[in-house]
């Protein structure tokens, strides 16, 4: 594996009983990329992410984060990952600050100044001492990103990060992702079915349907090779066939 590869899927497969939810995923994500993982509902995006962060077992194959197997070297691998899977499910009866302190205690070397830094970064300074139960979905999403950033991960995994957000919330999250990608040198793995948004955010994509990877590569190269079409057109051509 190349030194600059952050994520490597190696024939990763997920089976439940006789059903194959994700089949034989094999691809790599180089450092610094914003990778969009696209597919219709039920295509296997969230299952792939759950395998990637060790929430569900990989049935066959493996996934490596910075060269460490998520199934066999979990602690070493997950150290490099910050993630929000599905919803930012934080403790609603605690304040934003208390939530961040809670997660900071679970990794070594996170000082108070780092918590303040990520709060500033996600723009929650004014409301950080309020209970999370009083937050809007957009604010919870930003707090979720803050907890994911606490331990300075090199890979940020976001599952449908703009799902359920109003246009203003979507804009804020997109800007935050672009800011983090350019300033903090973080590799992103973002799943979504919002194609226009993914075209704006990502420089690399993978399209999954029925648990199988249909296509993976550089956005411009893929859309260019198909005759300078939009990502949306490419997606519908692929998924229709």
């Amino acid at each position, binding site marked *: 594996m190349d030194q600059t590869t952050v994520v490597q899927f190696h024939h990763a497969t997920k089976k439940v009983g006789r059903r194959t939810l994700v089949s034989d995923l094999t691809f790599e994500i180089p450092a610094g990329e914003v990778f969009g993982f696209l597919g219709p509902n039920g295509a296997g995006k969230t299952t792939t992410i759950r395998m990637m962060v060790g929430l569900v077992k990989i049935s066959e194959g493996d996934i490596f984060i910075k060269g460490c197997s998520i199934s066999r070297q979990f*602690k070493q691998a*997950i150290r490099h990952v910050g993630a929000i899977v599905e919803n930012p499910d934080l403790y609603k*009866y605690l304040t934003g600050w*208390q939530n961040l302190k809670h997660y900071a205690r679970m*990794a070594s070397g996170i000082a108070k100044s780092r918590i303040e830094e990520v709060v500033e970064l996600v723009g929650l300074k004014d409301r950080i001492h309020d209970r999370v139960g009083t937050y809007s979905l957009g604010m919870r999403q930003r707090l979720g990103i803050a907890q994911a950033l606490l*331990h300075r991960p090199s890979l940020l995994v976001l599952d449908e990060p703009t799902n359920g957000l109003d246009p203003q919330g979507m804009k804020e999250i997109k800007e935050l992702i672009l800011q983090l990608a350019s300033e903090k040198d973080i590799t992103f793995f973002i799943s979504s079915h919002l194609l226009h948004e993914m075209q704006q955010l990502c420089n690399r994509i993978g399209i999954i349907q029925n648990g199988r990877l249909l296509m993976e590569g550089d956005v411009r190269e893929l859309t260019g090779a198909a005759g300078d079409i939009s990502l949306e057109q490419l997606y519908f051509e692929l998924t229709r066939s």
Partner: protein
Amino acid sequence: MMNLLGNELYKLFKTRKLYVFAAIMIIVLVLNLFRYVPGDPMVVWTFKHGQSVPLNTLDLLTQFMIIFIPILLGDSVTNEYRRGTLKLPLLRPVHRSELLGAKLAAMLVFIVIMAAFYVAAAYAVGTYYLGWGDGTEYAGRVFSTAEGIRLTLAAVALLLFPYAVYGLFVTAIAVLAGNMSLTIISALVIMTIALNLNAVEAVAPWSLAYQAAYYHEAFISDPDWNLALQRTGVLALYAVILALFSFRMFRKKEILY
């Protein structure tokens, strides 16, 4: 591990469960004692002194634990899984066994706090209604105050063991259950059935419900060391089996919420 335990305790105190449970204990003690008349043939208790209340009402403490422990673990294990809040801690460089270990350690702290509070509350409520008295009555004998306090504390300390094993039993259910109600109801139904089987001599020595109610009696007042050893052995066997099962299931659990 200490940081994880700190997190679990922080949540325990923040959710106010402890305070609600403590209030319930006081209310039940008051309801039981404010009309209590020593010697009433309709009542099983016979004590006359307030200082005898904690030692003679330990069955109440056991009943509280049988109800409170499933609520605690149903929330910290099953409900966290269901609400999705178990997900984020599992995305940290922490092994699942460490996380479950921290939850179990927090449960032990909870048991100790609840038991200590019960003793203090029972002394206070008992003294309020019956007066302190000049000795501790237990098993047909009267002990000096100092001896009575020692016996009370020893009995409660001994009961922590079966309560902790019961906690492991509930944990085994909690890691399997899909929602908090299922954890609580399953634990309570199984324990109620087991309590009703206490009268069956062949079953009782092997029953966790029996041990939770009577474990201490083999040690205090007139100790029967053979019986004490047998009861400890049974509980230790339960503890090992239930802990191995719970940790294994938690490690293998697919986090789907």
